[in-house]
């Protein structure tokens, strides 16, 4: 307890702002590509930071294992789903312009959803990695 003092306080301070920064990057992603990836990295980093300071069980309570795997799969599906939706609406795969009546609007919506998929997947993958390494030897089922 006493040994973690500095880390714990700093973590408490930083984590909410990290999460918000992640969402900021996500929502401003369409003004520069790659937002979802960075947002995912930061989101996962915040949770990992939490896990490092407060322990793996706390992190697992917050984001359970099964949920992490579903995140990976769901994110990819969201990405692909947007692509397929573009196709179903008469454009090409990943065609955003057809996602709304107004092409520019449609494009924003498409990129936002796609980046959201990326965020979820990347965060899921990073958490999965963290769980695998952090949980090694203690909980064989987790790896």
């Amino acid at each position, binding site marked *: 307890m006493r040994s973690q003092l500095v880390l714990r306080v700093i973590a408490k301070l930083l984590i909410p702002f990290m999460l918000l920064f992640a969402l900021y990057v996500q929502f401003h992603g369409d003004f520069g590509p790659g937002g979802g990836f960075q947002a995912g*990295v930061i989101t996962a980093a915040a949770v990992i930071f939490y896990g*490092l300071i407060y322990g793996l069980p706390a992190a697992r309570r917050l984001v359970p294992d099964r949920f992490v795997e579903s995140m990976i799969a769901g994110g990819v599906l969201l990405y692909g789903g947007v692509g397929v939706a573009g196709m179903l609406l008469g454009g090409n795969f990943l065609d955003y312009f057809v996602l709304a009546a107004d092409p520019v609007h449609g494009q924003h919506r498409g990129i936002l959803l796609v980046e959201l998929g990326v965020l979820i997947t990347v965060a899921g993958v990073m958490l999965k990695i*963290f769980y695998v390494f952090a949980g090694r030897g203690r909980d064989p089922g987790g790896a």
Partner: protein
Amino acid sequence: MFTVAAIALLVTLALALLRGLLGPTVFDRAQVANTVGTIAVMLLAVFGFLFGRPEFLDLAIIYGLLNVIGTIAVLKFFRYGDLGEPGDGEAGR
């Protein structure tokens, strides 16, 4: 001018890496990793100006965050051989 700063940072980087090669303890290397991370953040910021890429700043922030967490994770790993330990049980080790 940004170029001068960039070169100064690269020199710093090289010197720090040299210390990393010399070691001798694992903590020296961890310190080097941390410093290199800081330099990388600054390099990203300076490059952002040098090449007119303001979005590098976002990258720099992200890199800075990851650098701290990475350092802590490495330390934790070396202390406990495990990342998942809630730090309370330190006395026993």
